[in-house]
Each structure stands twice: as structure tokens, then as C-alpha cells.
């Protein structure tokens, strides 16, 4: 569960990234977070990941209250969250297996469990048989699949995706969306995107942001730029 209650975020130089944003995402819900550049999408994701502390308001993620300026169990919080970036953030000197295993090592899995769990995750994202390949040998779509496998492996229950199709061509973007569709109902997914086609086709709940404020919360929404 992710809950924002009148959350605002002001940066030290005075610019306001979020103003009184409130919403609640239930467990295993799939939600799109949309809005133009600078609307506050990434700020919301960073607040959930506790890369930022809120200036005002309450943020609850599962049983963690992130409102305190001195929130300590950041590592424990992040161990429940898988994150997918627009630029993949796949480590170039590690092969596919090692990149995905990184997530499990942080969670404290043993080597035997890691091998099994990585294979399952790679099968889920359609990269079976490419365990030993290095990022330089993979396409952009495959790199994003590696990133998704890394995010979902180890039973991380919340998936945060920050414009994961932003660097992909439409066909590959749809293939990536199919993987997210497979996860629907199993994990809480917050998917930040600009891609109107994807949002409008899938007809999921949409949170629309504009200039730091939540302007609409559509249960089966569409989206126009």
C-alpha cells in the first residue's frame, strides 16, 4: 500500500515540486502516473524510495511511515521496492545473470536460491538463455527486460517504473508493457510515463499531475497531453 496525504515537497532554493498531493494505491494495484515534464512524477517516485524526504504531509509505504525527516530504515524500505529506470541502469561490466543477481544478493539470498530465482525472473521477461550475455551484446529492449527482472526478482512487492518505455521504439515499448501486464495483480505497480498510447490502451487507474499538483485521479482513465 502506498498512501500520500497532503504531501508537499519544496527544495532548498525555494522551487516547489509537489503541492498537497494525496492519493492511495492499494496492494497489487496497477497505476499510471502521468503528466508533462516537471509535473512532479519523478519527485513522487523519489519520495516513495526515500531519496527525498517530504517537506509536509504524510507518506505511508506498507508499514513504513516516511513522514519523519529522520526516517532510518531506508534499506529495509527499499528492499520491498523494485525500481525500473528510463536509462535501464544495467551495469556494463556484469552479465545478465550478475545484474539480476545483484538485487538478490542485497536481499541476502544464498547462491543456490539466486541461480533459481534469476532463471525464473529471466524466463518471465523473455531472456531465457541469455544469462551469460553482457549488456553490450543486448538491444535496448533486452536491457530494459534485464532491469525489470532485477526489479521483480526476490519477491519485491512494489514496482516503481520511471518512464521505462521512454528510450524504446513503440514496438519494443509494447513488448515491455506485456511484461508489466503479466505482473498485474501480483505486485503493486506505479508506472510513470508520457506514453499516451499505452495509458489509453490499457485503461488502468491514472494519476494525472500538473505543475506539482494532482489534478485528476481516474479509475479507468485515459490521458491526453
Amino acid at each position, binding site marked *: 500500500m502506498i498512501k500520500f496525504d497532503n504531501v508537499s515537497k519544496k527544495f532548498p532554493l525555494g522551487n516547489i515540486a509537489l503541492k498537497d498531493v494525496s492519493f492511495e494505491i492499494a496492494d497489487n494495484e496497477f497505476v499510471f502516473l502521468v503528466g508533462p515534464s516537471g509535473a512532479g512524477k519523478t519527485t513522487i517516485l523519489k519520495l516513495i524510495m526515500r*531519496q527525498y524526504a517530504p517537506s509536509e504531509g504524510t507518506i505511508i509505504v506498507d508499514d513504513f511511515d516516511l513522514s519523519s525527516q529522520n526516517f532510518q530504515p531506508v534499506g529495509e524500505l527499499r528492499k520491498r521496492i523494485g525500481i525500473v529506470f528510463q536509462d535501464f541502469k544495467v551495469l556494463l561490466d556484469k552479465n545478465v545473470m550478475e545484474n539480476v543477481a545483484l538485487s538478490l544478493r542485497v536481499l541476502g539470498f544464498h547462491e543456490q536460491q539466486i541461480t533459481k530465482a534469476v532463471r525464473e525472473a529471466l524466463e518471465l521477461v523473455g531472456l531465457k538463455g541469455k544469462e551469460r550475455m553482457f549488456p553490450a551484446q543486448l538491444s535496448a529492449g533486452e536491457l530494459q527486460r534485464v532491469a525489470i527482472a532485477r526489479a521483480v526478482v526476490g519477491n519485491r512487492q512494489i514496482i516503481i517504473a520511471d518512464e521505462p518505455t521512454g528510450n524504446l521504439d513503440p514496438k519494443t515499448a509494447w513488448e515491455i508493457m506485456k511484461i508489466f501486464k503479466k505482473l498485474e495483480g501480483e505486485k503493486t505497480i506505479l508506472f510513470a510515463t508520457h506514453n499516451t498510447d499505452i495509458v489509453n490502451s490499457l485503461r488502468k487507474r491514472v494519476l494525472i499531475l500538473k505543475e506539482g499538483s494532482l489534478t485528476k485521479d481516474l479509475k479507468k482513465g485515459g490521458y491526453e497531453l
Partner: protein
Amino acid sequence: MNEIITSIRRTPYQSLASFLILFFTLFLSLFFFNLTSFFNGILSYVETRPQVTVYFQNQTKESDIFKLRDSVVSSGKTQSVKYISKEDALKIYRDLNKNNPLLLEMVTADILPASLEIYASKPEYLAQIAEYLKKQPGVDEVIFQKDIVNKLISLTTGLRRVSLFVLLFLLLIAFIVLMTTTAFKIALKKEEIELLHLLGASNMYIRKPFLYEGMLFGLASGTLAFAIFYLIFLYFFPFLSSYFTGIPSLSFYWLGNFGLYVWPPSAYFLLLSYVITVLFGSLIGFVGNYLSTSKYIK
């Protein structure tokens, strides 16, 4: 282990710099440790020797020596006085040179002097006893051990100070080099560290490979420093043995009871040297990388 090997492969020159500075620091530490141990061994040996030894001229009669011994004892300034006859001296000489038959062939009891070994009841009587003995007829030489002990104490103290200064200087350099190379390695792994933080890794989890790497470098460079030092030592051992002929087995005071002989170095002393070297190396590697990671991984 894989991470450490990858880190070394990715930054070979920085790793070599870390390794070499640790190697030189540990090699010199080992050198000073052995030198200080040797001088401490000499010191503890000398301290167990008689404080004043009087050698008599060849023609001095035994009865005159006994008279002198009695007069010294009656002064009340001595704790004990031991007479070493010419025959006793020959026996001691034979014991000391039992491995060198050439030195034994030409020596007879006649050419060795009789002597008195005197222990004073208080250190301040030593000079008075020595002065008194020097004036007696038939006395050939008076060896006043306190001078030797004092010289050895000042030598070992000086050596310890020089060792400490050199080691502190080397430690400082080692820490600076380790911190710089580790900072470089951290910069190279910046993306991975950021990602690990986002995946929920604690700072200690991220720092661990750097700390293990530092300890491994300490262990490896300590082992190499030990191996090279003792290869050099073994090469010069025959020369040193002949140079130090007459010096018996040396130990640090009571440590000889545990077989810790610094000269000739016993297996236990070699083992102790190795353990101290690698522990010291691992500690330097650990602390250097701990300081660096504390500063740069937050």
C-alpha cells in the same frame, strides 16, 4: 572474492600502488621488528651476565685471587662472587665453540685467564667495586657490565624511536595511498554503488568488498614481504653466523621458555614474525579502506 578480483582487474595500477606501499611498509616493519628483537635479545642476555668481571694476569696465584675475593665479599657491597678458574674458563670456551674445532685446537687452560664474576648488592656500588679492583695487583682487566648495559639500553631505545618514526611515516604514506586508490575505485563503481543503495543495500554491505580487498592486500603483501625478507636473511645467514660467533641463543627475557629465540631465529619466532606481519598488513589495509569508504560511501 570475485568482486575483489574484478576490482583488481579494473584498476590494475591503483591496486599495484596499494600493494606496493603495503609491501614496503611491511618489509621495513619486519626489518625493524627483527632488528629490535635482536637487540632486545642481546640486552636481556647481557643483563643476565655478571655485572663486574675481573680477569687476572696469567702469573697471578689462585691464593691471591681468593684473598681478593674475600676482601671484596667482606666489604658487604656484593650479592655474590663467583670464581672462574682457568679450567672453568676453558670449559666455557669449549662449550661456546663446540662447532668450530679449529678454534679449539690451539687453546689450552694456560692461556685463558682466571676471573671473578661479581654481582653488586646495589647498582651504585658497581663503580666503587670496579675502581677498587682496578687498583689491585695481579688484575689484568675489569669489565664493568653496567656501561655495556647502558649503551645497549640507549641503542635499543634509539632504535625503537627510529623504528617508530619510520613506521609512523610509512603508515601515513600507506594510508594516503590506500585512501586515494580506494577513492578512485569508488568513483569507478559510482553507478553500481548508487544502484545498490536503491536496491536497499546498507552502507556496510557496499563497503564490505573494499574492506575485504584491503585486508586481502595486507595478507598478500605481508606474505610476500615475509618471504622476501627471510630469503634475504637466509642468504646472509652463514655470514651473520660467523660474525656473531660466540653469541649464544638470544631470546626476549622469559620468552625463551616458549622457544622464542630471536638468534638464531627459532621456528616459533619465524611464525610469530609472519603472523604479526600479516595481521599488521591486514589491519593497515582494513583501516585505510575503512577511512576511505567512510568518507566516500554515504
